[in-house]
């Protein structure tokens, strides 16, 4: 295309402005986190004596060790099971094309539009009734259910795009449906499964509403849920709150930096695939 000089100039300026807009908030809480605990600094002001210890202090008072363990347990409870269930269902709908597959898919797709608020009230009472309220199961089980629409949708898209020849040649060799799944298609689906695993992990880690309503003890919650409680605790101490926020968002941040390319691709594929 023909970009005029001024178009190039203005275009870059615009992008730069958006980048500043995105980054400035992170810079601000970082700088604020370095101020003495308990003080009320103003937005962007480098402290005379940066209090690096605030991060350690936040790590300690936020019980980060426990939180990481708790969130990891929840992720371990949610993600593998979700992957297995979603892959199997995606296989059934996308590849086997079981009778009623279209309706089944529509039923799952409906779930994609459902706000959490629509089901959180009964989830609370259900969790009470079956005695899992205030345990991690209260987050894990509903999350598996809630991830099914996206997971199934995602895996179906993969299986639906598999060339028919792969399946047919296996059939000719007399493979059972299970063999077909286990031996032929599962290995071929490694990529999409890995992407799905990353996505579900981050979404689990960041889950807030379910954690807030279903589990009272912050150390049994997800990271995001714990951060909500941390805010309740330290709303009074801005530098410490900022330090705690940084400490808590650091894990996903690092994962993003490391897996950037895969993550962005994964996050996007879901929306356009299909």
């Amino acid at each position, binding site marked *: *295309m*023909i*970009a005029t000089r001024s*178009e190039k100039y203005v*275009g*870059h300026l*615009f*992008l730069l402005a958006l980048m500043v807009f*995105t980054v400035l*908030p992170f810079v601000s*809480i970082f700088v604020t986190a370095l101020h003495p605990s308990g003080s009320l*600094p103003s*937005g*962007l002001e480098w402290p005379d004596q940066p209090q690096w210890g605030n991060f350690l202090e936040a790590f300690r008072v936020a019980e980060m060790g426990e939180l990481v363990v708790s969130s990891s347990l929840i992720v371990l409870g949610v993600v593998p099971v979700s992957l297995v*269930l979603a892959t199997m*269902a995606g296989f*059934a709908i996308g590849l086997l*094309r*079981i*009778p009623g597959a279209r309706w089944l898919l529509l039923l*799952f*797709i409906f779930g994609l*539009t459902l706000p*959490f608020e629509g*089901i*959180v*009230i*009964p*989830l609370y*009472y259900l969790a009470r009734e079956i005695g899992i309220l205030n345990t991690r199961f209260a987050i894990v*089980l509903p999350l*598996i*259910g*809630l*991830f*099914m629409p996206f*997971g199934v949708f995602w895996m179906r898209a993969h299986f639906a795009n598999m060339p028919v020849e792969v*399946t047919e040649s296996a059939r000719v060799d007399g493979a059972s449906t*299970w063999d077909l*799944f286990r031996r032929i298609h599962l290995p071929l689906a490694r990529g999409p499964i890995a992407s799905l695993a990353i996505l579900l992990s981050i*979404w689990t*880690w*960041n*889950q*807030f*509403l*379910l954690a807030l*309503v279903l589990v009272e003890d912050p150390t049994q919650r997800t990271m*995001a849920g714990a*951060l*909500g409680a941390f*805010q309740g605790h330290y709303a009074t101490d801005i530098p410490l709150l900022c330090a705690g*926020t940084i400490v808590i*968002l650091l894990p996903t941040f690092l994962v993003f930096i490391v897996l950037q390319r895969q993550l*962005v691709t994964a*996050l996007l594929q*879901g*929306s356009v*695939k*299909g």
Partner: protein
Amino acid sequence: MKPDSQPPTGPASSDRPILPRRRVGRRRRLDGSGLAGWLFAAPALIMYGLFVLQPLLLTIQYSFYNWDGVGPGEWVGFANYVRVFTDPDLLGPIFNSFRLLIFFSVIPVTLGVVAASLIHRIASSRFGSAATTVIFLPQVIPLVASGIIWGWLLARPGVVNQVLEAIGLERIARAWLGDFGTALPAVGMIGIWVLLGFCTVLLQTGMAKIDPELYEAARLDGAGWWAELRAVTLPGIRYEIGVCLTVTAIAALAAFDIVYVSTGGGPGRATTVPGIKIYIEAFLQRRVGLASALAVALVFLVLAVILPVQRLTREDRT
């Protein structure tokens, strides 16, 4: 899905594709796809049924009762719904969520189109990918963190006011989240920050699929960035725009995390959205029936907003 608590905004919703495009030419069904096939689908369906569909039906059931969460409920027919649509305290949040649509949906998508096309057509690839990465960053952190960060930015001593003062606008400096006139737009600002990256990146992938020959032709016609955007890019990314609008609209209508931590619904009821109201009514006021009616209304509201968008974007792509 909506893996993320609040639906879409998080990374979560990010990707939710909403409706699949129909595939032309169906393949024939494979043998043994009947019972055995259903066995493959059953576990997912059971979990989905138990923890999503069942609660949804219960929400609908609750909504016809006057129930305080204890004791027996009392059947009240549609009374809760009548109240949802007549009581200003309950209608207000619904209106607020529509106003949020502008900030969570319209603005990020518009800015996203501009940013994506700049990255795609003008920026050097290095600068472009750096911009993409940076703008995408807010997507991976918890919404709660976004709320806390911006709560501080928008406070009286926060950066926003500092910047305003630096450029001589101290007269409009204020506690943005505590002022009736600005609280909702300020919350909307957080939404823009969170969702812009998602839109930009998604729209970029849409643009990457546009046939380069079209740009070639536009160039021969002497089109600049703007003319090219209108003639080639926009028509080429209709589907992606539709997905963006859908995802961000759900984020707006079902907002909870950001509002909960940044304003709690205040000042007054200026930023109370349905999610906050449902939480308060169900768990503080314990009007479970009323809260459920509002929740059901919200579910339908989301459908009512996104279904037309789907139609729009699907029309000429068969």
